[in-house]
């Protein structure tokens, strides 16, 4: 199963960077991404690898609508979202994107269920039942009312994954999702992510971890802000 076969046909990518350049202007201007083209399709698990400082986090921020490009266009399901206001971007993030971070970023004062529903806390909908559902799915059905300090690293990351899914996102972005986990725990997390991907979600993971690339459909390599060509970029 390889979605990339269909890309040139009619299917719209879930999210796409088009000729995107990102520069950080400071004492000296750093070009973190240079003229990058990257479509990510629903149901595809994309791994981004590359040395430190190569622009991986920058790329994830652009895909997550947390930051805008200096040049180029970001398309969310075909829609140009490059020039949306901060309010519109916030809504777009809540509606379409799920985030998983290396250090989990759970709120320590909240229980697992509350952490999972946090993205929807200020909206009208009722998500508590879905949160319970999701926690059950990631194997935490018996940890609903535990706070993060009562959970192991792997459990925390699973809570974070459940949180990323609360809004039924079309894109799941993961920054080193296994970075703080041992190999065995990493495997369970990646299997979870794999299942999410199979349900049609576009998954992008930034990683140093060989393990992640093993679960990915496609791996691209970033070097100095440019997408690498050649065999390295397309490990299976």
């Amino acid at each position, binding site marked *: 199963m390889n979605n990339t076969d269909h890309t040139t046909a009619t299917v719209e990518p879930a999210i796409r960077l088009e000729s995107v350049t990102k520069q950080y202007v400071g004492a000296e201007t750093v070009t973190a991404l240079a003229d990058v083209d990257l479509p990510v399709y629903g149901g595809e698990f994309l791994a981004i690898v590359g040395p430190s400082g190569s622009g991986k*986090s920058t790329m994830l*921020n652009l895909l*997550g609508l*947390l*930051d805008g490009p200096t040049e180029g266009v970001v398309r969310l399901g075909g829609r140009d979202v490059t020039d949306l206001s*901060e*309010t519109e971007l*916030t*809504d777009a*993030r*809540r*509606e379409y*994107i799920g*985030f998983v*971070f290396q250090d989990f*970023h759970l*709120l*320590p*004062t*909240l229980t697992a*269920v*509350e952490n999972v*529903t*946090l*993205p*929807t*806390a*200020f909206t009208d909908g*009722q*998500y*508590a*039942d879905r*949160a*319970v559902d999701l926690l059950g799915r990631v194997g935490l059905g018996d940890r*609903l009312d535990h706070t993060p300090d009562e959970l192991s690293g792997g459990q925390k990351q699973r809570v974070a994954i459940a*949180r990323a899914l609360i*809004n039924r996102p079309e894109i799941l972005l993961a920054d080193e999702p296994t970075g703080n986990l041992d190999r065995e725990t990493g495997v369970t997390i990646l299997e979870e992510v794999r299942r999410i991907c199979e349900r049609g979600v576009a998954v992008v993971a930034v990683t140093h971890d060989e393990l992640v690339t093993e679960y990915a459909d496609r791996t691209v390599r970033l070097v100095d802000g440019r997408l690498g060509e050649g065999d390295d970029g397309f490990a299976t």
Partner: protein
Amino acid sequence: MSGGLWRLPALALAWRNLRRNRLRSVLAALGIAIGVFVIVVLGIFGTVLQLSASQELGGIGNQVIVSPAEERQAEALTPRQIQSVERAAVGRGTAVPVYAENALASAGSQQSPAQIYGIDNPAALFEGRDRSLPAQHRGGAFVGPSVASALDLQIGSTVEVGGQQYRVVGFLEPSQDITPIQPNNAIVLAEREFTGGYDQAVVVADSPEDATAVADDIDRRLNVRTDRVDIFELSELLDTIAEFFTLLNRFLIALGSVSLLVAGVSILNLMLMSTAERRGEIGLMRAVGIHRESVLRLLLAEATLLGAIGGFFGAVLSGLAALALWAVTPIGLDVVVVPRNGGYLVGGFVFGIAVALISGAYPAWKAAGERPVEALRG
């Protein structure tokens, strides 16, 4: 799970955050509590002072005393002037024409200086000691307490004034009021014991405002081109005293506000610290789609809660302090439990919240406005 997980999300999250570092939150709220306490207690203290004072001053503001103008060297008021005073008093109080002179009173071998009044309606100006005074003087002498004890007088004793002897028919109650018509050294006789014109006319007005109006009216009627009568009226003095107390009260409250200001600074500091510590959490909230305004609301809710909790305890404590003031001092409940003091309680509470809110505004605005990319980068 219940459906209402996030019914009041800002408040719920704020409450959790405050409980997280309980000691720090309690100290910040304590600052507000102390500030509110100081303001409210000083406010109440000022009210009690003012009300007690105006109780003491009592009738001072209600009397208008009209006498012949000093520079005209007239001995007495003319009947026309008395009539004018009576007209001016209609509907605003009672006019009482008065004969008055200083004389030596004696009984047996004892002597005492006394203020001798001739008044047909003693009840209008004095209180009786054991029974009330008549509205129509039927003869004899009503004697003030100082004279009575100096001359060792009883009911039925004889007192001699200006070569005439009078039977003591009653005593006057000493007065706390500050007024030129003092009962202590007075001997009140009937008018018929005097001859000639009245020395004074006293108007006992229904209120200080009426007193002012009566005084103005008399002035207009009698002092047309030249001053024919002197008009002595104290309601303006009362105004001046009230102004002084208002000023004193404001000063006390301003003093108290300084302590609330300090509390505000401590909330500012707490909010700056706690938002800096939670930078990543706030960034996370923004990243997962919580709006800047919602984060702002959450952080302001934290400050407001601190202010509300502190303000509540400050107000309750100062209410208790006010009641203690009543319980352990001679101060009456009637000057403690008054609407204005209730106003201070509520006002102090609201002020505490406002100070906390204002102090929290800048840190909240700063933290909520930070871009999530920056905040998440740590």
